[in-house]
């Protein structure tokens, strides 16, 4: 079947809307792989993310998202391959550690510390610590400095953890499921203050989630990880522009599939709905088909259902 064909997308750079100062590569992984006790959590991941992006890192549970992020944060070492942040390999060197901030899944903090003591912790352990920024953020959020961290609500704890990560003034902020276990209000608040921090500091952010809808408006880059491999990596606007939902007669579906890669094919009776990768410059001039745009969520779901299909912004030979 043609639908089995692997799709590779060319280009995918930053486009003219990204200011030139941000054209550096924030994150680059080359053939990155990690094995735990004989099981590959991550296999052969190669990708790069331009600076200044907010990256939605999605994938089903157990896809290897946490492993990837922990590798980027330097918490674990890869079995094979390499990760670079702004051109420098990650690892146990003070300069490398200072560039990346990491927010672990359960947002650990020292429960017995007061909020002020957590700030002091950040201050002592980070030469680039921005105390004014931290205090201002916490004041805006009405989080009392003299309260014990363990006595704060889940949302407030997440805010304190985020504040410590941001006040470190990293170039790259890595967040492993920052919205997990938070109520909808706290989720929105976290995203609001995260976006404000991004506007203020121009840092690059990678945040993982298995809920795409939480990230739709906040992220401008999409990375999809499935079964330990990168399935999609690209700019959200370009990805959305390169995919169409085609509806038309079922008997003509095979003909369309022969001309362009079909990511998702659902047919019911005489009607066929095809999510296709039109690619740049390709269009379908057939009045019997109606084309409509796809949402980020539809796109991600379609790809996740087809783990053999990829869309990656690098020139690669088309393989089977």
């Amino acid at each position: 079947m043609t639908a089995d064909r692997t799709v590779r997308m060319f280009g995918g750079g930053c486009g003219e809307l990204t200011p030139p100062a941000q054209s550096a590569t924030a994150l680059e992984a080359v053939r990155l792989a990690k094995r735990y006790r004989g099981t590959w959590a991550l296999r052969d991941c190669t990708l790069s993310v331009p600076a200044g992006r907010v990256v939605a890192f999605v994938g089903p549970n157990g896809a290897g998202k946490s492993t990837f992020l922990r590798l980027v944060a330097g918490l674990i070492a890869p079995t094979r391959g390499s990760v670079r942040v702004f051109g420098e390999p990650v690892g146990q060197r003070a300069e490398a550690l200072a560039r990346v901030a990491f927010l672990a899944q359960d947002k650990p903090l020292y429960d017995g510390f007061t909020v002020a003591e957590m700030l002091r912790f950040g201050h002592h352990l980070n030469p680039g610590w921005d105390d004014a920024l931290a205090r201002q953020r916490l004041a805006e959020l009405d989080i009392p400095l003299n309260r014990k961290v363990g006595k704060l609500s889940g949302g407030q704890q997440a805010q304190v953890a985020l504040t410590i990560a941001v006040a470190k003034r990293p170039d790259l902020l890595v967040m492993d499921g920052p919205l997990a276990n938070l109520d909808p209000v706290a989720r929105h608040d976290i995203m609001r203050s995260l976006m404000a921090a991004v506007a203020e500091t121009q840092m690059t952010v990678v945040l993982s989630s298995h809920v795409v809808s939480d990230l739709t408006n906040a992220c401008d880059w999409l990375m999809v990880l499935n079964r330990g491999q990168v399935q999609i990596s690209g700019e959200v606007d370009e990805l959305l522009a390169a995919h169409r939902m085609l509806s038309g007669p079922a008997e003509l579906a095979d003909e369309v599939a022969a001309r362009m890669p079909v990511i998702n094919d659902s047919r019911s009776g005489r009607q066929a709905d095809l999510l296709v990768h039109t690619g740049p410059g390709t269009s379908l001039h057939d009045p019997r088909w109606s084309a409509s745009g796809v949402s980020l969520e539809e796109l991600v779901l379609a790809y996740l259902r087809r783990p053999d299909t990829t869309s990656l912004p690098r020139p690669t030979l088309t393989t089977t």
Partner: protein
Amino acid sequence: MLKFRLDPSSGVATYLQLVHQVKHALRLGVLMPGDRLPTIKEVVSDLAINPNTVAKAYRELEHEGFVVGRPGMGTFVRRSLGGGATADHTRLRRDLARWVHDCREAGLDHGDIEALVAMVLADSAQEGIA
């Protein structure tokens, strides 16, 4: 200060929604030349959207000549939108209100009126092209 709202179900790209809302505010006179648009940080900390999206919308507006960005100070309205003098606006609005009243008298509901307006607008646009 202008406050943006997002309609997630509209299907319109977020940055375009922002552009439309600024233009709408310019038309209604909510925004006047010299007014400052909310900063990118203010918008994103309100809506939880990507700063690049706001920047893109502001660049679009700047490109179209509606606003001007002054580094370190903010983005300011340069000119208003909507033809005609304010006096004309008042008169036309009064006429339209009367017309809407007529429509209601004739038994048209909200949807009917909207459809009618859209149809007339489309026809007039066609005439414009022709």
